[in-house]
């Protein structure tokens, strides 16, 4: 167990000095918080939204006795909250992609693998090191979003809707679980490739199903609700357990060509700082 903390500590000290990773961790949350807030600000400044008849019927139903601008805001919020779910996926996957492959290119992985650390400890340490900042950044931006949106719209009802159990489940649980799945796939891929971008690209495919849900909701094909979210959480727990197990088993602990000097020279040039 203490070795897991050592890995986390090391990752944070090391990975956050990588500019690309730092950029993702800082820029993504700011973007994902600012965009919906701008939409909310635009929505609430439009006074003639009183009747709000041009909103989709499903929303009118959902809004109940909310004012037009609050209803519009809620709609925006609903759509962007899905992005909040995706955020903890994108940040950690970037970190995870660099954490194994980066250590191969700098040749730090070989001495690490020579220590008595178990593969599970190494991978769990790396997963958590990638997961925690992403989740914290998401929660922080969600909090900022909720507070600023409330200040803009001044509707306690809206705040209640944002802090709805469905969204708490989604952002508090499903997002991090999705992220864990993404990280594990990334780690699995990155133990077998020698270029971080390959690992990142493969893992980026994971976002596609989520984007599918996002657009399905925008065009009104499905309306996510709390039951759906709870189901998603349960399913994700099972998927994560399977992926962690598979990840540890499939991890290629043996050093291969990446550790050899001649191969390494070119790899060193590749690592964009």
């Amino acid at each position: 167990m203490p070795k897991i903390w050592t890995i986390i500590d090391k990752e944070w000290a090391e990975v956050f000095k990588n500019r690309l990773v730092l950029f993702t961790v800082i820029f993504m949350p700011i973007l994902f918080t600012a965009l919906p807030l701008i939409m909310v600000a635009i929505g609430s400044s439009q006074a003639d939204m009183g009747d709000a008849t041009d909103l989709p019927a499903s929303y009118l139903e959902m809004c109940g006795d909310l004012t037009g601008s609050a209803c519009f805001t809620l709609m925006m919020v609903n759509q962007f909250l899905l992005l909040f779910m995706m955020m903890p996926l994108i940040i950690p996957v970037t970190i995870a992609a660099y954490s194994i492959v980066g250590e191969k290119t700098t040749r730090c992985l070989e001495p690490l693998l020579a220590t008595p650390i178990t593969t599970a400890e190494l991978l769990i340490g790396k997963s958590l090191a990638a997961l925690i900042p992403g989740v914290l950044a998401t929660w922080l931006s969600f909090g900022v979003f909720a507070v600023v949106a409330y200040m803009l719209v001044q509707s306690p009802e809206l705040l209640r809707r944002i802090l709805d159990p469905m969204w708490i489940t989604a952002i508090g649980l499903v997002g991090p679980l999705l992220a864990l799945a993404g990280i594990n796939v990334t780690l699995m891929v990155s133990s077998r490739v020698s270029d971080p971008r390959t690992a990142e690209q493969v893992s980026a495919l994971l976002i596609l199903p989520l984007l599918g849900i996002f657009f399905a909701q925008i065009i009104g094909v499905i309306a996510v609700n709390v039951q759906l979210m709870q189901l998603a959480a349960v399913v994700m727990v099972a998927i994560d357990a399977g992926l962690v197990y598979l990840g540890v088993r499939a991890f290629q602990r043996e050093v291969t060509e990446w550790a050899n000097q001649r191969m390494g020279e070119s790899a060193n040039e590749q690592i964009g700082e």
Partner: protein
Amino acid sequence: MIHTENLTKKFGDRTAVEALELDVREGEVFGFLGPNGAGKTTTVRMLTTLIGPTSGTATVNGFRVGQADTDIRRCTGILTETPGMYDRLSAEKNLTIFARLYEVEDVKGQVEKYLRFLGLWDRRADLVGNFSKGMKQKLAICRALLHEPAVVFLDEPTSGLDPEAARLVRDFIEEIKAHGRTIFLCTHNLDEADRLCDRIGVMKQRLITVDTPMNLRQKLYGRKVVFHLREADDALLARVRALPFIKEAQRVDNKLVFGLDDPEAHNPALVRLLVEAGADIQFVGELRHSLEDVYLSLVGSTD
């Protein structure tokens, strides 16, 4: 300390190490020599459980490779071919991480001990990326020693270093050697092997030979003594050649070179004879073949 039987590693159809039989004793510095691609690094990786052998067995400190890998990792330290330090972390942080991973009890104490040992205590907060190559290499060697392992593997510790840095590192290894640890040293530098190693194994896919540097020379060339005289001629040479213990005699200008089995026993008689014959002896010395000659003829003969 290290024992291998029939240890073999194949990468596809290419055999990197073939039927290696090694015995490294406790407390010795064992030099591992061989040309590029001979399989030295592959052997070290097998012995440190970084790659699995294709066939054969090996034990390190009594633990069997493939069966007690974690135990082996606990009691070995390795300087990998490329040291792989975290350049963006401080020297202290680098060592601390590894001390924890190696389950060192007194992490702070061990890290301080080795930083002081290196004379880097004052620079402990500096990023490793700012250290010179020689310093980095020494730091990487210390990283391999933090948990006071029974066996240390050093894979080409002085390659890529300038002569001064290489010397720093070599002196450093000599210091470690004085602590009585078993050291397995891969190197291309023959003077280094000659100076540091108790025994040397020469390999090229298979193990060609193992012996002390001295015996290796002797086995190939026997021992030779050279006498520098003020003047020498063939008549003098003929008189010496008549002695029963002289195996070989040669004159090069004013120098006489003799091959004999036991110079310590026979030199006094030789000196006496030369003096009685009226020769003015200026210098007497042993003619040493460099290990390089030995190595090249060993490695060359397998082609």
